[in-house]
């Protein structure tokens, strides 16, 4: 079985290294074919592992010793258990689809080979993250996906906005990673080891205050990676990258790493329900906060990005309330329908010459019916309409919130579900139905290549049927995650599901009706609330004024005053002194033997004097 583990892990690395050879060359389809094949191989291996783990196996492999210094002993170890195998299958499935899709999407890009190098490197890092058996391995994968995310957001680095967004994502993640690192140091300080088994075995006997701080610090790292408030601004700006990247990294996999961390450390987080409560509250806040920004945005990809943020909020609610398997379930279903949504958006962008403003589209259904159908499926799944995937996972989260007695969280999520329904169908209506605005603007949209649509089909099917695997999924992952008991009466639960579904469907119908009639009037756009939402609560502006500008001034001061006038001055002084000394002492080298002998005698006398008069320790 071990060989499947190694194949699953290293096939993407091999693909990445292979296409790395071609990065300086012209577009070469072989890079795409090889990387796709290797990712598919990785997916098949993960699936094989899933089957054997379902039969009761758990793989724990120590590949080699990595760092062994003093008391610190870090092996390169990998664990494949019920949780990590789910992540592996999800990651490799979505990445295979995205890779095949990119063959069409990136077909005319001059960075074609480079793109596939990065994607495979990303998948490798992500697999390290989910498969590692210790926190340090997780952290390396964590930084690896951060690096690949940076490279891919700034993929079109000639564009100022793209390289800016890449930097923003990278720097913001580093800020949050400081919290994560401190959490790791605290873990090592307390346990003397980084391995999950040993840490979680002893976590119960620790001072609760320290467990709380470890939990909080790790969660700060998770907030950065999963773009939770107040680190959320990078995710929307990350949409500067190519759309397949948004689908893979900024929707399905990397941003869910924070949720994965909380699930993986569930043994730790379940000891500190008050931190869990903070996580859940923040998650509920982000679920509504992000969804509200999606309501008015006109940028196709940003709407979906805010929707991702909002769904990450849902996952954190479940994880914070101790319903870890529900969080993982939503993570998986979300990966399917959200990447499908993004890839559909990529098809639209391709058809519309990279135009992103949804008000400039309209009536595309007739032109690209397959994309429209797939996106409609994904949207319905996102809204949580029976029998699509989102219905099962989202309603479980709502039930968990109600079950814990956190009615305000439940209410926030309930409102969030309504908002989700509105913005999803606003997008669908504005893009695919209504007036053909694009005709007046001179666009000539067309449906994309058939093989791209075929590649999307697995995601479409999974978005539709994945929900029915709820029971087997629960049994499978609760073998190692704690069970979550729903204690509210069954009738109440059914009532809640009915209430939410009715609300969501009502909103969908109302949205369709309203936009069929021509949408909202222009006057709404001048309302203060609209402006507030449109400007993302002015948070990017506040960050710029409160953090960026003072920091820029501080940096300028440090550069002009401290660096140039003090540090450079000292360094130059040393160099100048040595230079002058050299100039003066050059005369010694006259080449005259007599002079040399004289200097020799001076030297001997000096050394003798030192030997006679210098007594160390006296």
């Amino acid at each position, binding site marked *: 079985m071990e060989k499947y583990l190694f194949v699953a892990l290293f096939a993407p690395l091999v693909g990445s290294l292979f296409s790395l050879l071609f990065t300086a060359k012209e577009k070469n389809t072989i890079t795409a074919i090889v990387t796709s094949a290797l990712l598919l191989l990785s997916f098949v291996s993960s699936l094989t592992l899933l089957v054997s783990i379902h039969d009761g196996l758990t793989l724990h492999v120590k590949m080699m010793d990595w760092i062994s210094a003093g008391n610190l002993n870090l092996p390169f170890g990998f664990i494949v258990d019920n949780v990590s195998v789910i992540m592996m299958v999800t990651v490799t499935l979505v990445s295979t689809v995205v890779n095949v899709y990119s063959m069409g999407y990136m077909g005319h890009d001059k960075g074609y080979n480079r793109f596939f190098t990065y994607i495979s490197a990303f998948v490798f890092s992500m697999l390290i993250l989910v498969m590692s058996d210790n926190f340090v391995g997780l952290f390396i994968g964590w930084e690896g996906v951060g690096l690949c995310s940076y490279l891919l957001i700034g993929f079109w680095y000639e564009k100022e906005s793209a390289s800016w967004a890449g930097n923003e994502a990278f720097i913001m993640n580093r800020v949050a990673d400081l919290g994560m690192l401190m959490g790791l140091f605290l873990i090592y300080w307390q346990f003397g080891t980084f391995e999950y088994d040993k840490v979680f075995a002893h976590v119960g006997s620790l001072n609760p205050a320290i467990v709380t701080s470890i939990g909080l610090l790790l969660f700060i790292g998770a907030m950065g990676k999963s773009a939770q408030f107040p680190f959320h601004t990078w995710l929307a700006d990350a949409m500067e990258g190519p759309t397949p990247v948004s689908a893979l990294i900024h929707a399905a996999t990397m941003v869910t790493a924070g949720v994965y961390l909380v699930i993986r450390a569930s043994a730790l987080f379940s000891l500190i329900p008050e931190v869990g409560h903070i996580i859940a509250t923040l998650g509920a806040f982000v679920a509504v906060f992000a969804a509200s920004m999606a309501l008015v945005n006109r940028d196709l990809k940003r709407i979906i990005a805010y929707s991702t943020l909002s769904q990450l909020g849902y996952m954190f609610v479940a994880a914070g309330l101790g319903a870890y398997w529900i969080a993982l379930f939503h993570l998986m279903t979300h990966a399917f329908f959200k990447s499908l949504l993004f890839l559909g958006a990529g098809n639209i962008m391709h058809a519309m010459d990279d135009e992103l403003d949804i008000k400039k589209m309209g009536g595309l259904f007739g032109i690209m019916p397959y994309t429209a159908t797939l996106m409609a499926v994904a949207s319905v799944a996102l809204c949580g309409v029976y029998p699509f995937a989102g219905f099962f996972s989202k309603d479980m989260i709502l039930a968990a919130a109600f079950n814990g007695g956190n009615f305000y969280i439940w209410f926030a999520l309930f409102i969030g579900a309504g908002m989700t329904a509105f913005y999803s169908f606003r997008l669908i209506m504005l893009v695919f139905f209504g007036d053909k605005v694009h005709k007046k603007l001179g666009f000539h949209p067309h449906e994309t290549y058939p093989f791209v649509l075929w590649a999307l089909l697995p995601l479409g099917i999974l978005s539709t049927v994945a929900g029915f695997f709820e029971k087997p999924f629960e049994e499978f992952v609760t073998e190692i995650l704690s069970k979550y008991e729903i204690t509210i009466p069954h009738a109440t639960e059914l009532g809640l599901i009915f209430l939410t579904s009715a609300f969501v469907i009502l909103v969908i119908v109302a949205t369709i009706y309203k936009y069929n009639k021509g949408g909202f009037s222009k006057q709404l756009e001048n309302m203060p609330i609209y402006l507030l939402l449109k400007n993302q609560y002015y948070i990017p502006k506040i960050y710029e004024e409160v953090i960026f500008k003072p920091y820029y001034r501080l940096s300028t001061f440090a550069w002009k005053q401290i660096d140039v006038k003090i540090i450079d001055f000292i360094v130059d002084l040393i160099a100048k002194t040595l230079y002058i000394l050299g100039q003066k002492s*050059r005369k*010694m*080298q*006259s*080449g*005259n*033997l*007599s002079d040399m*002998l*004289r200097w020799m005698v001076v030297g001997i006398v000096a050394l003798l004097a030192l030997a006679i008069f210098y007594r160390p320790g006296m």
Partner: protein
Amino acid sequence: MITLTHYLVLSGILFSLGIVGVLRRKNLLMLFFSTEILLNAVNIGFTAVSKYYGDLSGQIFSFFIIAIAASEVAVGLGLLVLWYKRSGTVDLDSLQMMKG
């Protein structure tokens, strides 16, 4: 009575003479003489201390120094003669080709 001190003082005086010669003389031949004086000053010191402690190593060392001094002079004089044939002088200041 002649004691160890007398020998060492003699050795010191000879050594100083040698040093002054090395520093002041400009004639290469004289420089060699000064070097010989330096070496022999050391020899006297070695031999005297060797006798004082009753240890023969000092005297053996002196023999080595005498042997090496002889070969050094042989090589040095050869070079000196060659230099005289080439430049017509044995003045030290004529040897300034390695100026920095």
